C-alpha cells in the first residue's frame, strides 16, 4: 500500500507543478516547476517497476534537456522586461477556447478508461532486460535514433550560427543591421 500512496502523492505533485509550469509568466520559474514535474514522473516510473527509465528521466530529461532551456533563457537575458512582455502575450481570455477543447479530449479519455479496472503487473523490469531488448529486436530503432540525434546536432549547429542571414533577402520585422550591431556588443 505504501507504493500506492506514494504513487498518488507523486501524481498530485506532478499535476500541480505542471499546471504551474504552464501558467507562469516568468520562463525561469516555469522551468523550475517543469523540472519538479519531471522528477515526480521519475518517481512514478520507479514505482511502476521501471527503475532504468526513472534514472534516465532524471539524468537526461530533468538534467540535460532542461539545462539547455536554462542556457537559452540565460542567453536571451530577458530579465524583468521579459515578465512585462509576457503579461502582454498571455491574456486571461485566451484560455477559454483551448480549455474547452482540452476538456472535450479529457472527457473522451475518461470515457475510454472508465470501463475496466486492471492492475499493473508487479514485475520490475530492470536495466538488464531493457538492454537485451534494446540491442536485440530494437537495434534498428537505436540506429534510427542515433541518426535523428545527429540530424538534431547538425540542425542546432546550423541554426545557432550568429550571422544567419535570410537568403531570399526579404526584409525582416526588425532591420538585420540593428540586430547584428546588438550582437557585437
Amino acid at each position: 500500500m505504501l507504493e500506492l500512496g506514494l504513487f498518488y502523492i507523486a501524481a498530485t505533485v506532478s499535476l500541480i507543478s505542471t499546471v504551474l509550469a504552464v501558467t507562469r509568466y516568468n520562463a525561469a520559474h516555469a522551468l523550475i516547476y517543469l523540472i519538479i514535474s519531471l522528477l515526480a514522473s521519475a518517481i512514478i516510473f520507479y514505482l511502476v517497476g521501471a527503475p532504468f527509465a526513472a534514472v534516465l528521466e532524471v539524468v537526461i530529461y530533468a538534467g540535460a534537456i532542461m539545462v539547455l532551456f536554462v542556457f537559452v533563457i540565460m542567453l536571451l537575458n530577458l530579465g524583468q522586461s521579459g515578465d512585462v512582455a509576457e503579461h502582454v502575450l498571455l491574456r486571461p481570455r485566451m484560455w477559454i477556447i483551448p480549455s474547452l477543447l482540452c476538456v472535450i479530449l479529457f472527457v473522451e479519455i475518461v470515457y475510454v478508461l472508465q470501463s475496466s479496472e486492471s492492475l499493473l503487473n508487479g514485475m520490475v523490469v530492470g536495466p538488464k532486460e531493457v538492454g537485451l531488448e534494446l540491442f536485440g529486436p530494437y537495434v534498428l530503432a537505436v540506429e534510427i535514433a542515433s541518426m535523428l540525434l545527429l540530424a538534431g546536432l547538425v540542425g542546432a549547429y546550423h541554426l545557432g550560427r550568429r550571422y544567419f542571414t535570410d537568403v531570399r533577402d526579404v526584409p525582416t520585422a526588425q532591420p538585420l543591421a540593428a540586430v547584428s550591431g546588438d550582437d557585437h556588443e
Partner: protein
Amino acid sequence: MNEAIVIPMEHGLLLAGILFLIGLLGVLVRRNIILILMSLEIMLNACGLAFIVAGAHWGVADGQIMFMLILSIAAAEVSVGLGLLLQAHRRFGSLDVDQASRMQG
C-alpha cells in the same frame, strides 16, 4: 520490491492523459516560444509515461524502450527548437510566436 504493486493501470494512464492535455493547453495558449517548447516537452513526457505504464502492465521492457526513443526525439527536437528560438529572437526581437506569421495566405 518483488511484492505485487497494486497501482491501477487506468490511474497511471489517466495521469498521462491529463499531463498531455495540460501540455496541449500550454501549446495552444502560450505565445512565448520558450513556453511552447516546454509545453511540448510536457506532452512528450506524458507520452513516455503512458508507454511506461502500459509496459508495466504487461511486464515487458518494450514500454521503456519506447520511452527512450521518445527521449531521443525530445532531445533532438529541443536542440533544433532552441536554435530556431534564438534565430526568431534575433529576427523579431521578441519571442512572440505570432510574429512569425509570414506564411499567411
